[in-house]
Structures are given as C-alpha cells and as structure tokens.
C-alpha cells in the first residue's frame, strides 16, 4: 500500500501518473543490450591478472609463457600507459597525481590491495585468456599489509604512498608527529561554542559506533569493449552511470583528445555510484591498439567484490548534550572512514549529512580519510551518509529513551527548517523534514502497538543534500507530431520515462508520442553522471528548457504562416496548440505536419547548469522498522517496514516508490546481512554472492512507502532527487528496533547473528 500526502497544487496531466517505461519490453524479453552483450567482428577477449597480495612491490613481470600460448594476441602492463601530459590531475577531491589513476588501473611499482591488476592479456577466447593470465609470472616482494584502521593509524604503520608520486601535490597526507602518515585528509565542520553547549546540557551522552565495508552489489559485473581504429579514433562501449565521466578519465590516462574518444553507454545492470569509476576501459582500449582488433573484458564476481566499489568501513565517536526537554544543545562527532588504497572516501558526505535533519546550535564534525590495503572505495548511494547518520540516529534513540520522550517526537523538537544552517555552512532551503516527521507520527504503523515477545520497533531519519550540475537534452519534432527526446543521462532507475513525462507535460502532448533515448558522448552535449539523485532534477530542467525552445520555434513558425509578429503567437500546453491573432488556432500535430513545407523541421535543445536555472532541493526520509530477534540463533527478522519520504513532486510515483524500496533494502542489508570479511593479511574471505550475503526476497517484508510531497521551488515541477535518501535510515531504524525488542544496543553493524548473540551474552552476564 502506498499513500501520497501532498498539498493541493497545480493540476498536471502527465506528471503524477504511472505510464510504462520505454525500456520495459526490451528488458522483459531479454533484448536489452548490456555491455557484456556487445559482440563485434573479430573481437578478442581480455583477462586481468590480479595481485594475490594486499601490499607488495612488483619486482618483475614476465609474460613470455603467456604470449607463447596459441590464441594469445597481446599482454599489457603499466609500462604501456603513456607518461601523463599533466602530472597532476584535478579531481572532485582536489589535485592528485595523474599516475595514481594508471597505477590503480594497472599497478606498476606497487600493489596496494588484493585484486589490484598487474597485467592484462587478450586472446581469441575468454578461456584462453584466462589460461594465459595464469601463465604470466610476477615476482613480488610482499610487504606488511595495513589491514585495519588501527593498523593504518598506528604510529609505526607501514606507509602506503611512500613514493615520489605522493609528493607531487602538497598536503595529500597529514603528517603525524612530523612523520608521514596514512591519513589522507582530516577536516572539521561546524559552528557555535561546543564547551558552552555541553555546559548548559542536562544530559550528555557519548558513544562509539562502527559500520562494515559494504559493496554496491549491482548484479551486472563491470565490462568494457573497445576499438582503437587505425585513424586514432577510439570507441568504447561500457556499463557506466556517465559516459562523459568515463571519457574524461580514459582520455586523461591515454593522452587522447576528447574528440577522438567516443564512449557509448550500454544498458546498465545497476551501479549505485560505483559505475562512475574507470577500471577496464583503458585496458580494453590499449589492448585494442596493440592488436588492431576489438577487445572486450568482463569481470567475474570475485573481481567485482575484491577490486571494485566498495564503500568505507567506518568508525565513529559521538557526544551529544541536550536539555531535559530533549532540545539538542551540542554535538561533537568524529568520523573515521577507510578510503581503501587511494585517498577519497566519502567521509565528507558523511560529515555533511550526519546532523542534517536537526538544529544543533553548537556542533563540530571531524572527518578522517584513511588509506589502507583494501580496494579504493567508490561512491555508494548517498555516499558516506548511512555511516555518518547511523551514530546520530542511534544516540538520539538512547537520548529519547533516557528522557522518556517518544523518539520521533524528540526528533521533531529538533527538526531543521528553511533558513537553518547545515554543518558545512550551507543553509537549508525549502524542505519537508517536519512534514516527514509528522507523517511518521500520524502513520498507522507508528501508532500501532508491537505485539509479542522479542519484537520491537525503531525509527530513524535520513538526509541527503542532492545534486545538480550540468545536463543536455534535445528534442526532434517529427512531421507526424511524434518527438524523439535525447538526453545524456544514463537510465538506471526509470529516467527515460521520468524525463519524457516532463517533456510531455511542458508541451501538453502525450507521453506515448515521445521516444526517449540515451545519447553517447558524440551525439549529445555534456551531461554529468547519473548519480547523487541529480538526474530527474537537473536533466529534467534541460528537458523542460528544450521544450521551451521547441515552443518558441513553433511560435515563430506559426507567425510566419499566419503572417503576424511572433509575440502575437503563444503556445498553450493545456490544449497543445498555438494561439494567434483573431482566434487563430493550430494544434501541435498540425504545426508539426506543416514544418517540412514552411522552413523545415525543428529541434529544441538545451544545455543547462542547474545552479544557473534552478535550485537543488534537499531530501529527508524517515523509516519505521519492526523486527523480531531470535534469542537462540541471533537472527533478526524484519516484520514490517514503512518508508516515509519527502519526494518534492513524484513525477512517476511507482518508480519513486521503486527507488525508495530498493534503497531501503540496501540499507537493511547494511544493517543486518552484509559485510566484507578480511583476514589480517588483507585477504577478503567472502568474495562471492554466497558468502557476501545480500538480502533475498524471503528475507524481507513488503516495503510500504509514504510519499510526502513538498515541492522544490527550484524546479518547474517541484522535483527533488529521491534515490539516495532511502538507504540512510534503515541502519538506525533497525538497530533501534533491536534495542526495543531485546534491550541491547547494537553499535557495530551489521547486526549479524554473531553480534546479537555476543550482546545477549553480555546482557546476561551483566544482569
């Protein structure tokens, strides 16, 4: 059951309905072409040889036996990468050595995680390539692995980045006691006077929490197919959330002009943030250059788990002070995030979001980005926020318990609002945080009693600021009144439908008359990655502007036909028609039919930067979880689950629900099932879907959703990004529900049976 709560607002024709997606039939018939389904004439198959060690120097690579195997065409090592044109690259996290990218993609001097690629081979057949990879001899000098946060932060820790590359850029690592360290970045957010805040508090709580490393868990493994043509032009087909990001990255490591590299995004089998990263594409391209033939590489599941994604394992410390009425006065938060082998954990996201739903007048959030011998972390849905907000949502539950205040009521007393500062200094815009909290308090699930032994209920909030950025769209009007709409946004969750719906609304035409497509880097203008919950918002803006462009051109055309001034003609989407002087009317279909004879076909287009046209709307969600804990086995079963979220305006409510349900289940996986298990040498012990345990259908109840609609005034249809937030609240909601059920506080996630049984033992021992 889904309920939608929205203020009476603009009547829409298309927005708010649930038409079928344009990619539906292809996906249910098996016809959709994903990256690994691409087949080109004469194609070779590549395989990557990966390090069995988490930390080692690569002393020698000898591929002679591999090259002698019949069917093998080429072997690639780090030495095949060109010397970068610019030794320092600009990244979203500031300047970094360019060779860090090539070293990560194919190690040269040193391997920094188990699964780190050291060589690649291509052959006529994937099995031959696999055999050949096994014949490549690599001599390693094994170094002590930095396997845990404690290892990494120890005073005598081995230093991962001890070579000249790290010294190319000042301040990449924070010295500790004048010595190099593995701390890539330490920063502090906040404002107010912490000491004064705690001094005024009636109650102060201080706790520590941990979350495991998790993988994004997309079912489709990474893949890349490349052709390096004799004329120097390169084409890459890949499974990515953003063709332009891949183009930028590949061009940089291969010294290619952007215009010589075409990246075609194949249908994508899930990404959740991690398919913005380049892994196989440059390898496929260089192997194609060596052989003159198309080359395809596909990872297996072990490679995906050991060498792509994941998100950071984290450790956090938090102290909060409040009045006895539950008003927060001060919060001090410290987040330590594992970055993996190279700097760049999402700790900044975690720090920005941790206190996001609340007004805390005196606050400090410290973030640490720590490198260690694990794969370099990648974005995962609301990057950093689940681990950043879990400590806050847990300690607030404890605060509510100690003050005997309803946990959602306590949150409501501290709810943020329009104009309130965030930890990073930004100011909250028009948001629906209060509406979400109130919707929880009045929801039948929240108002019902939990019945039965060892059953409990928990709630938690989630906040994500959402993204904007750059997007392009064009719309070709055909003579029969149909429209082809092309955008640069890869479709991972129904964007083709959500974008076509916005275009249909702006034009007043039927959704079914629009053919909605995803372009590639040579057929559409620059568009940022599909991520950060930016697409329906920012590319929606581009689509809206493209519709305005079509409308304006149609008005000019009608003025020519009617022999009047263009400003005497107006396009009205409510009847999809042009209106001119003396009551003249021409429908969109009629105007389209007359285009060929009156000056030719038209095409509307737009390239927007969202900050120039609108304003991103931040998103809040709250989840209610009921669980049962089996005291014998330690198993936690989710019995009932409700996700409440401010969605701005749901363009396609069913797909918005799908985003919320999918995100919530990924968060439930973080709370209960999933974790990377490593040994002390940095070897992952559960690198398969059997042992890395993602939720399956019979683990879960139905995920009920409540769509609260507080429109974002920064978008023509009120859109807020909706995809990120739902992964955040489950961690706190479930941990709090477990406490309600059996009286123990889970401070280390996942709450696996082992963790629950240990807590129950402690409880029994302490009683």
């Amino acid at each position, binding site marked *: 059951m889904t309920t939608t709560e929205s203020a009476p607002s603009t009547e829409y024709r298309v927005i708010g309905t649930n038409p*079928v997606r344009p990619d539906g039939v292809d996906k249910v018939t098996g016809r959709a072409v994903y990256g690994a389904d691409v087949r080109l004439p004469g194609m070779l198959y590549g395989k990557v040889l990966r390090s069995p060690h988490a930390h080692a120097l690569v002393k020698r690579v000898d591929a002679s036996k591999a090259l002698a195997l019949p069917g093998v065409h080429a072997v690639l090592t780090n030495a095949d990468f060109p010397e970068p044109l610019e030794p320092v690259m600009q990244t979203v996290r500031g300047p970094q050595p360019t060779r860090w990218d090539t070293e990560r993609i194919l190690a040269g001097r040193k391997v920094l995680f188990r699964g780190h690629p050291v060589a690649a081979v291509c052959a006529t057949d994937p099995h031959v390539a696999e055999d050949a990879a096994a014949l490549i001899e690599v001599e390693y000098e094994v170094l002590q692995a930095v396997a845990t946060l404690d290892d990494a932060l120890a005073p005598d820790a081995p230093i991962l980045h001890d070579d000249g590359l790290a010294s190319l850029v000042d301040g990449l690592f924070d010295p500790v006691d004048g010595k190099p360290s593995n701390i890539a970045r330490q920063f502090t957010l906040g404002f107010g006077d912490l000491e004064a805040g705690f001094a005024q508090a009636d109650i102060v709580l201080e706790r520590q929490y941990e979350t495991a490393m998790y993988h994004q868990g*997309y079912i489709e493994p990474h893949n890349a197919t490349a052709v390096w043509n004799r004329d120097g032009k390169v084409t890459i087909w890949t499974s990515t959330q953003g063709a332009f990001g891949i183009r930028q990255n590949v061009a940089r490591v291969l010294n290619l002009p952007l215009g010589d590299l075409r990246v075609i995004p194949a249908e994508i089998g899930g990404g959740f943030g991690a398919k913005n990263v380049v892994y196989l594409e440059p390898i496929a391209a260089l192997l194609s250059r060596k052989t003159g033939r198309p080359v395809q590489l596909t990872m297996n599941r072990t490679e995906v788990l050991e060498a792509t994604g994941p998100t950071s394992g984290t450790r956090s410390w938090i102290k909060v002070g409040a009045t006895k009425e539950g008003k927060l006065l001060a919060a001090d938060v410290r987040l330590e995030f594992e970055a993996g082998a190279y700097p760049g954990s999402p700790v900044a996201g975690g720090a920005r979001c941790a206190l996001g739903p609340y007004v805390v007048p005196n606050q400090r959030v410290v973030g640490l980005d720590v490198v260690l011998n694990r794969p370099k972390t990648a974005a995962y849905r609301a990057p950093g926020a689940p681990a950043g907000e879990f400590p806050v949502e847990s300690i607030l539950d404890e605060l509510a318990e100690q003050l005997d205040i309803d946990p959602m009521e306590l949150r409501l007393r501290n709810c943020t609002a329009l104009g309130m500062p965030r930890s990073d200094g930004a100011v909250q815009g028009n948001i629906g945080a209060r509406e979400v909290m109130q919707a929880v308090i009045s929801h039948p699930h929240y108002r019902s009693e939990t019945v039965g032994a060892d059953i409990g209920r928990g709630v938690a909030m989630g906040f994500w600021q959402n993204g904007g950025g750059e997007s392009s769209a064009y719309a070709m009007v055909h003579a029969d009144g149909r429209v082809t709409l092309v955008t640069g946004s890869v479709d991972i969750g129904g964007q083709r439908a959500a974008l076509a719906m916005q275009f249909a609304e702006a034009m007043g035409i039927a959704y079914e008359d629009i053919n909605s497509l995803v372009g590639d880097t040579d057929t559409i203008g620059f568009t940022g990655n599909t991520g950060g919950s930016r697409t329906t918002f920012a590319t929606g803006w581009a689509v809206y502007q493209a519709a305005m462009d079509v409308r304006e051109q149609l008005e000019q055309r009608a003025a020519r036909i009617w022999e009047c001034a263009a400003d005497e003609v107006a396009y009205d989407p409510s009847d999809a028609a042009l209106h001119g002087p003396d009551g003249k009317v021409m429908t969109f279909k009629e105007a389209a039919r007359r285009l060929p004879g009156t000056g030719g076909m038209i095409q509307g287009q737009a390239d927007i930067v969202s900050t120039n046209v609108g304003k991103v709307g931040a998103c809040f969600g709250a989840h209610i979880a009921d669980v049962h804990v089996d005291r014998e086995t330690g198993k936690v079963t989710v019995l009932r689950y409700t996700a409440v979220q401010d969605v701005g305006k749901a363009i396609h409510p069913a797909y918005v629900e799908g985003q919320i349900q999918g995100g*919530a289940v990924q968060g439930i996986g973080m709370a209960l099932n999933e974790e990377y298990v490593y040994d002390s040498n940095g070897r992952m012990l559960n690198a398969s879907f059997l042992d890395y345990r993602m939720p399956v259908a019979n683990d879960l109840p139905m995920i009920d959703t409540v769509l609260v609609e507080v429109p974002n005034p920064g978008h023509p249809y009120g859109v807020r990004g909706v995809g990120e937030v739902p992964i955040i609240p489950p961690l706190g909601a479930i941990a709090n529900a477990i406490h309600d059920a059996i009286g123990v506080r889970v401070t280390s996630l996942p709450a696996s049976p082992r963790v629950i049984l240990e807590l129950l033992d402690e409880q029994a021992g302490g009683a």
Partner: protein
Amino acid sequence: MAKIAYTLHVNGEDHEVYAEPNLTLLEVVRDELRLTGAKEGCGTGDCGACTMHLDGENVTSCLVLGVEAQGRDVLTIEGLAQDGKLHPLQQAFIDHGALQCGFCIPGMILSGVALLERNPHPTREEIRQGIAGNLCRCTGYTKIVDAIEAVATGVAH
C-alpha cells in the same frame, strides 16, 4: 580443448552446436546461439541471473554444461513470449514497475513462471520463497512480488 558437435533444443528449435565440451549452457546459449537474454552475474549459481528452464525445471545455467542439456527442452527468456504476445508475467512486470536496471529480470521472470506452473495460486510468502534464488539489487522485491501475485490472482490483464 577439442570441440564437439551436438544438438540443443532451445525455445522449440533445434540448434547445431560445435563447441568445447567444457562450456556451460549459459556460455553456449549466449556465445554460440547469440541469445544474450540470460546474464552472468556470478558464475557460481548464487544470483539467478542466468536462470533457464530445463524440461520445465528452473536451473542456473552457469552450473549446467551445454552438453548436459542435449535431448532436453531448454527455455530461455527469448522463448517466453508466444505468437508475438508477451507472457502475462512479462506484461505484469512492466505494468507494476517491477524492473529497474533489468539485469536480473530475465531470470526473475523465468523463476516466477516456474513457480506459477507448479503452484498457480501462491501466497505472498510462497512467492518470496519461489524467487529467493534470484538476486535483485534495485527493487527491494516488493513490486516483483506484486507483479507475480497479480498474475496468480488474475488481476493482471
């Protein structure tokens, strides 16, 4: 490895295969017959993306050798729509918004069809059990269960 010739009966048609005997049914169907609807998500039988029917029974085709399927009826997602009309479950998946990225969907639908063939009126619990071998990371399964339930109860068109 020396190739051998054999016949596979896939989606009602005989296909002559000439391939290495160590290739899995998934590899033969994808690479030799070029039916790429079945996907490889893990290669170890854990994710269900490669699900096919073998004599009407669900199998993870990454764990079956191509040669083992000789003389048996293989159904892949490409063979499910009949006479140009989608199977009711395929239509229900579209209508209920039960798919997002779509990568798991061919396997998920074939598991759903197998379930409905052995149990035409499953409860929601039985549906969850019936598709527990198919991982989906996008949807959280709720709308997938809805789609299968709609076909089972005749609500779907």
